């Protein structure tokens, strides 16, 4: 036959192969069965109802319904700021998974840090990217008095609570007689932020497509390890299964993003570059000392913890290897909470996955992550899996909007 015919045939063959490969990458083959150890790991990640909340021994009203109500009002109240424009909800917006969609928060001025999601924050023994607070209530005190966030003072806030009829009433039911001000300022301020924390404890992650998939594996019995999802769970297909397999295997995400919150709440340096123009953050290396010296910590005079066991604080690790180590955030409800990392350095999930794939050298300290050498199609599968961790909050809707 003529050379031209062979060339055409070769071209067609190459095209067919290319199309085949593209199809195969986009539609993974039916998956291998899960091994028993993998099934156990998947089970450890799943939740259908939120796990029991840890106790908050430092906050006597942490689970009190009236404190939740008072905290709810305070959370959405912009009078808790220097200019009357900034409330907690300004940076922790319920429509954006309680973040604000910005790289760094904007309160009365531009902040230094990416607003962290409050969903499930009650499960973490430490708060802030650098872990400088050891409870939700002591964390709430910080932005209120920060000159760049709310710009308020405890004097102003105590006055506000004392002078507002509704606040005063709720306060006195919960905490007894309002002390005279300004002598009682600290007491009123601390009680106020404890009420805010009681509200925040209500913000909990709900069931997601991944959780339903994990449940279906369990329901079908341990004898059946076929990973194929039931027909009802349309949003968890073979791509997502392939992504899950990478998550608990080759990509090693589960080393830090483990448990039903997909976070170990510990501190890791993963080589994230400082925000442009900013000095590198010292992270937990500095944060742990701030926590240990914080007058509002578990061992301090404002904590309600009787006998002060405070194990997290008493046995907290210090050390230079914590330089630039930041808190592992939960991977639940990531969509709508970009950008990511402590100063919003990574704009999309794809950027985050590329970052972990490369595992660049850290600017300070030592990057704990190693390069993964995943191919682009594998990163896409991981991303598809991460998107199955989104679901409605397990929080009644009245708490997710400003109170009347």
């Amino acid at each position, binding site marked *: 036959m003529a050379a031209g015919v062979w060339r055409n045939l070769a071209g067609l063959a190459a095209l067919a192969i290319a199309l085949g490969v593209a199809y195969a990458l986009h539609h993974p083959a039916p998956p291998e069965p899960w091994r028993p150890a993998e099934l156990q790991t998947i089970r450890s990640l799943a939740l259908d109802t939120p796990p029991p909340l840890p106790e908050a021994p430092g906050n006597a009203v942490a689970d009190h319904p009236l404190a939740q109500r008072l905290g709810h009002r305070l959370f959405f109240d912009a009078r808790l700021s220097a200019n009357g424009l900034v409330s907690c909800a300004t940076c922790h917006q319920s429509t954006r998974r309680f973040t604000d969609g910005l790289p760094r928060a904007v309160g009365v001025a531009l902040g230094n840090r990416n607003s962290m999601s409050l969903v499930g924050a009650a499960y973490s023994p430490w708060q802030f990217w650098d872990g400088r607070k050891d409870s939700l209530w002591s964390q709430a005190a910080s932005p209120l008095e920060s000159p760049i966030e709310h710009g308020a003072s405890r004097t102003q806030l105590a006055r506000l609570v004392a002078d507002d009829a509704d606040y005063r009433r709720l306060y006195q039911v919960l905490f007894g007689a309002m002390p005279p001000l300004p002598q009682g300022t600290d007491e009123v301020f601390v009680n106020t932020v404890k009420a805010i924390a009681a509200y925040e404890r209500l913000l909990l992650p709900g069931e997601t497509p991944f959780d339903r998939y994990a449940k279906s594996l369990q329901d079908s019995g341990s004898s059946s390890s076929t990973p194929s999802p039931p027909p009802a769970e349309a949003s968890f297909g073979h791509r997502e299964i392939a992504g899950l397999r990478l998550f608990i295997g080759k990509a090693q995400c*589960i*080393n*830090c993003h483990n448990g039903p919150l997909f976070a*170990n709440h*510990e501190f890791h340096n993963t080589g994230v570059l400082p925000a442009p123009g900013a000095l590198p953050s010292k992270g937990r290396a500095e944060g742990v000392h701030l926590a240990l010296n914080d007058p509002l910590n578990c061992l301090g005079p404002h904590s309600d913890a009787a006998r002060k066991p405070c194990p997290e604080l*008493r*046995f907290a*690790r*210090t050390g230079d*290897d914590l330089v630039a180590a930041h808190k592992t955030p939960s991977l639940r409800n990531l969509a709508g909470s970009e950008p990511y990392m402590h100063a919003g350095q990574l704009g999309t999930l794809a950027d985050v996955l590329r970052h972990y794939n490369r595992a660049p050298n850290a600017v300070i300290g030592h990057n704990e992550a190693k390069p993964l050498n995943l191919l682009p199609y594998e990163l896409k599968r991981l991303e598809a899996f991460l998107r199955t961790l989104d679901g409605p909050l397990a929080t009644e809707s009245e708490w997710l909007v400003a109170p009347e």
Partner: protein
Amino acid sequence: MKAWVCALFLCFAAGAFGQPGAAVLGLGAAQPSASGLYLVSFAPNLEPLAINQMHSWVLRITDAQGVALADAAIEVSGGMPAHDHGLPTAPRVTAYLDDGQYLLEGMKFHMAGAWELVVDIQAAPGKDFIVLPLTL
């Protein structure tokens, strides 16, 4: 005849002090330290061991003959060799209980996998250590 009686007495004595390596109820089997100076057994109060939970252990330290030691200075370190990192907390012995038992508080594991706990012991017999492997 005298040798016989002595041998019998020694067996009896050994029985009275406890066999090296035998388990005490509630703790695992006693394991020898690196240079054999001590026998160490332990029990976490978290059963089964799980990640991301603060918990405490009881460590029991005896000498090589199984005699409980009350005055040991104990330090704990460790980590995950495969991941080249240490423990996430700074656990320490906070109390001596009784019968060679020490309360080790502040234990936590933040990842599943192979861990090692290194227990450094200093008491009358001398300085020694033991590496306790654990898999979560």
